[in-house]
């Protein structure tokens, strides 16, 4: 039993922290009409990929850093804390899809390019946002030199900036994974008016786009990737809760009403104390999930679903409470409070609502009991 970060973890976190504090600037987003590209979305990436963050958990044999998911959440906690706008989420998602669905040869061919700054995206949800609809999804058809894909995907994170997109598609009543060039003929990518303007989310139309099948495709790919994406979102959320709390506490100590700092009023104190509990709980759950995924512990999928459900829901509560403590000024576009509020809100939908992860928790336990 050792529930503490190692010095290596702390060093990694601290250097990531220093990096994002220097590089991330959200102020361009605090002007009405701004979108994700205004906050250095593309510029930030070249530095991040230099640091190797997109390949941090990729095994060394494929040119990655071969580090653990605990290391990963050290970094994602920092990008999440600062809402760092960059294609990290999409690239991680794509890389994990290749790791899970690619043949050895494909992994050897594709994953090392991460070190050169390759950006990826993973297109799984259909136009309605469903992950398991077998009727409306993209279809794959064999062609002379591989396959062609047709249909529409949506809620694809970082698609518009990706070099390659991994697409799940129907073929012979199953879903396989394919890789396409983002600038291939027949692809049309629309950037959605996503409320969280620190993230790029897209709709992808494919019209006979030529694609390469990932040869180890199976029905296990999406659950495996999804658990890791849960971890990423949960780590962002846990860090966001802490930030929303710290900012609210600092404001409550400064802002005076009725002759006192508002943090002297029990109503405010107790709300913030409850948030402190949520921050601690989310942090513990994220680290446990990271450890259990790293260890291939049988409870890993359970831990990931718990972390995502809890952290995203508490992040929503924390950012709401944060605005309430700031009062009306916290509700304006010129303050960054709403950026966190929207990140929290979107994190709680991007891979399904918290209730859907709770359903996964119960199913896991039912299967275990059976």
């Amino acid at each position, binding site marked *: 039993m050792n529930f503490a970060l190692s010095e290596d973890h702390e060093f990694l976190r601290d250097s990531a922290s220093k990096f994002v504090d220097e590089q991330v600037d959200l102020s361009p987003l605090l002007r009405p009409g701004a979108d994700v590209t205004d906050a250095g979305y593309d510029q930030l990436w070249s530095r991040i990929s230099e640091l190797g963050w997109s390949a941090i958990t990729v095994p060394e044999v494929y040119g990655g850093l071969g580090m653990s998911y605990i290391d990963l959440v050290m970094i994602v906690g920092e990008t999440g804390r600062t809402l760092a706008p960059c294609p990290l989420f999409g690239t991680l998602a794509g890389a994990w899809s290749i790791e899970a669905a690619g043949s050895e040869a494909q992994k050897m061919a594709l994953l090392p390019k991460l070190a050169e700054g390759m950006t990826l995206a993973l297109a799984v949800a259909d136009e309605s946002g469903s992950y398991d609809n077998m009727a409306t999804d993209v279809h794959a058809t064999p062609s002379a030199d591989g396959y062609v894909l047709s249909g529409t995907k949506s809620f694809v994170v970082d698609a518009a900036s990706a070099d390659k997109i991994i697409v799940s598609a129907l073929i012979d009543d199953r879903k396989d994974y394919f890789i396409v060039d983002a600038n291939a003929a027949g692809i049309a990518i629309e950037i959605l008016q996503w409320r969280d303007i620190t993230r790029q989310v897209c709709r992808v139309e494919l019209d006979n786009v030529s694609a390469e099948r990932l040869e180890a495709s199976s029905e296990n790919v999406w659950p495996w990737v999804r658990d890791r994406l849960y971890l990423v979102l949960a780590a962002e959320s846990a860090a966001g809760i802490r930030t929303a709390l710290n900012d609210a506490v600092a404001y409550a100590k400064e802002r005076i009403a*009725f002759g*006192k700092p508002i943090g002297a009023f029990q109503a405010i104190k107790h709300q913030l104390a409850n948030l402190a509990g949520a921050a601690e709980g989310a942090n513990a759950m994220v680290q446990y999930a990271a450890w259990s995924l790293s260890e291939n512990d049988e409870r890993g999928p359970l831990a990931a679903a718990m972390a995502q459900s809890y952290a995203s829901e508490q992040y929503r509560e924390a950012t709401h409470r944060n605005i309430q403590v700031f009062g009306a000024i916290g509700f304006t576009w010129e303050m960054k409070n709403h950026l966190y509020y929207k990140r929290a809100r979107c994190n709680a939908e991007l891979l*399904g609502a918290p209730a859907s992860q709770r359903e996964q928790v119960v199913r896991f336990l039912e299967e275990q009991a059976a």
Partner: protein
Amino acid sequence: MDFNLPGEDDPRRIKVRKWFEENPNPTYAQLAKQGWTASNWPEPWGVGADAEMQWIIDEEIVRAGLELPYTINAIALNQCGQSLLNYGTEAQRQKFLPGALACEEIWCMLFSEPSGGSDLGALRTTARREGDHYVVNGHKIWTSVADHASVGVLVARTDASKPKHSGLSMFLIDMKSPGVTVNPIIDMTGNKNEYNEVFLDNVKVPADALLGQEGEGWKLTMEQLQTERVGMTKPGVVWGMGPTARDLMNGLIETGRIRDPLLRDEAAKLYIEGEILRLLTYRNMTSRINGTPAGFEGSAGKMLSSPHGQRMADLAKRSQGVSGMIRNPDVLPLPEKKWGMFSNWDYAYWFSPANTLGVGTQEVLLNVVAERVLGLPRESDPTAKVPFSEISNTSAKAAKQVRQ
């Protein structure tokens, strides 16, 4: 006890409807001439309508395809205008009310300040008497419709040697006066500005623009905010306005989303809360008909309706799943688009954090109910009894004390 509202065959309604038939497409000036833009006011401004008669007139105005006058000119016709009846001079009434009633002069409420917020009595804008006028300096914020209002109802400090609530006075100012600058504030919805900030830089205000007496400002302000809050008891999503839980339920049934068992139970809870708010408006209507003082609903309606609206907007948004995270997707239908900017759950949702901030934070309202309704001890305010000019010291001392 009778929960029936005046029906289609009510003789009072038939009379009103007849007028609309004879006067198609009336202007608000014409309605004002009938006394219908503030029908509850006494003649000659209104027709002294009781709550049922007012209900009928309002329904017929909507039926004629017009927006309700007190949503167009809320500050004049709902919150502040009645203060002129009670405290204004006849000259003030003659000068300000006709334009307001005809909805030709829009009013705004210059109350909140950046340094204030919940502690409105700590406001810093000053009005210094100089001969036959006052000179106003200060910075107001969260002012709705300031960008197209012609009249501003201003609270300013006329005597800093008095305690904070005693040195305030109220004025009706011309928003076109030199020195008045209005800047829009964009809120987190990203929509057209709902609020503005207003800078007052050596604005000359004639002495006869003072409403009531010098030093009466706090009393008038409290009355007006109270009137504003009573109106917020209604079951609409934002401060009583906009779609209600009935509309939410209809949308969920129509789309089949009501079959989700978790949403279903939450929707039922909200429906019940919404019906309670509806009943409280009926109780308020009854008090007004019977001329009895407003009960609980007077002080506590907003305490109930603000978080109710937030929960409604949240459920409406969650029912849309990931698609709801795209701007204005309108996945959940609102068949009747009669609520202006709130005819869209998306806007209502992103606006809703303000529910529990505007016109009294939830915490302030809970205090009001605890103290005025339940008689629990008042909050101590170390700055309440010292001269305003000495407060900064008192505040600093108190702040230091609690920090120990």
